[in-house]
């Protein structure tokens, strides 16, 4: 579904990505792993057309997305839960949920507000609060729900459990496993290796703007050297 081939991305004159390639198939849950500053978020922003890519190819369901503007890429069916949540502070929870709602994946029964609130019930009590009145965990759930309401073919989550209390993290991981069970394709970036091992099918490990390893969950689990070298665990 998503194909990224050899992309290079610069911030001004400093290069952040050196030929990154990856693929995600229908219904797959794939992770991007690696220490801080290795280029995971830059890869996501490159896919979404937020930071311009200077060379390489990217396609989504065989449509070239490389020179497309951000909004057009999203409309093909990619739902982003960005690093730092980026909830609209001046919109209420309900408005954040509805602002971009659409059936981009062409689902027979697109998500309704009630359905997404079943996945994260604690948001239901806060529908009329403004985005900046929520706790970090609630904002994070809202960011997931906001993306989900676009009925994406692929969800991308960048550090969705960063800085959250353990119980709230659990709620988010639970929400993601529910989505996986429904066949949702997900690209997920996170520090929590244990939770990722349970959720994901395949992994890419990044170092200094390059993919240095890729493989299935079992291969990482068994490889202590790999974990120590690239993931610091």
């Amino acid at each position, binding site marked *: 579904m998503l194909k990224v081939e050899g992309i290079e991305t610069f911030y001004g004159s400093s290069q952040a990505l050196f030929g990154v390639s990856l693929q995600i198939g229908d219904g797959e849950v794939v992770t991007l792993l690696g220490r801080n500053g290795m280029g995971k978020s830059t890869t996501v922003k490159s896919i*979404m057309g*937020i930071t311009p890519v200077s060379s390489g190819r990217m396609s989504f369901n065989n449509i070239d997305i490389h020179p497309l*503007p*951000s*909004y057009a890429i*999203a*409309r093909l069916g990619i*739902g*982003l839960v*960005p690093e730092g949540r*980026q909830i*609209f*502070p*001046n*919109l209420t929870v309900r*408005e954040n949920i*509805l*602002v*971009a709602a*659409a059936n*981009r994946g062409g689902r027979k029964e697109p998500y309704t507000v009630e359905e997404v609130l079943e996945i994260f019930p604690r948001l239901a009590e806060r529908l009329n609060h*403004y985005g900046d009145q929520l706790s970090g965990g609630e904002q994070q759930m809202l960011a997931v729900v*906001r*993306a989900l309401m*676009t009925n994406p073919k692929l969800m991308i989550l960048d550090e969705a459990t960063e800085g959250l209390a353990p119980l709230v993290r659990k709620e988010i991981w639970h929400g993601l496993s529910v989505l996986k069970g429904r066949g949702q394709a997900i690209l997920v970036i996170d520090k929590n290796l244990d939770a990722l091992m349970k959720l994901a099918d395949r992994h890419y490990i990044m170092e200094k703007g390059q993919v240095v390893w890729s493989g299935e969950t079992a291969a990482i689990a068994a490889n202590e050297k790999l974990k120590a070298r690239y993931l610091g665990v």
Partner: protein
Amino acid sequence: MLLVFEQLLNGLQLGVTLFLLSAGLTLIFGIMQVINLAHGSFYMIGAYVAATVTAYTGSFLLGLAVALPVTALIGMLVEMSMLRRLYHKEHVDQVLATFGLIMFFNELTRIIWGRQPLFMDVPAWLSGSIELIPGIPYPTYRLAVIGVGLLVALFLYLMFAYTRIGMQIRAGASNREMAAALGINIKRLYTLVFGLGTLLAGLAGVMAGPILAVEAGMGESILILTFVVIVIGGIGSVRGAFVGALLVGMVDTLGRAFLPLFFRLVFPAATADGAAASIASMLIYLLMAAILIWRPRGLLPAHS
């Protein structure tokens, strides 16, 4: 008493006219972060187009119906061809470029319509006056202006609070990158916002047509008041523009009407009138200074 009532309504009428102008300007300033000095030009364009169409067809409503889309369309063309390039530039560049636009539009109207001002008649069905309070007649047309202004305020409120496009405009204003990453076409949204803003300026111009002379440069005198309004109200805030516009309209109108009377109580008539006139013309700036000392971001700043 009679005079007070009449001046209150005059203040309200100036206030809603200022609101129509400042709502668009504050949106454009707040959302695109561009200083558009040429906003007054769209007020002038609205007035000229309406005056011309009304003169040819004899129908004020037809004049209005043509002027609004024409003004909005010219606004959107200006946004797409020029303003769009200024969004990421320094404020100085924006001021220079949009000042150039003012001169362009003023000269263009002189070329098309000549140097003589045009005069628009109040349409027959709105001429005459109504006694809102028995014994105190007030011109029907001015009441209609007040009514239209209040309806537009209600419309804008409903649009921003309850429609999807209103939500998207607010979302884009607070985080344009994220809004785009969710599939919202920000460029098109900006063009629409600009078109809406210029349409409202054009509407203000059409309605001012029968009250003032329609002439090149008419946009600039009111533009200054409009900037005062959006600074008082809080940049980017339509609600603030509403409150600020009514305040400025009232203070300006009442100041000009009543300061001379107060001053005459103390000074000889000639001195009183001269002093009162100059102080009255400064009154809104004093008001602005006082409000900014009290609330530096304006009365009702946009949600931050």
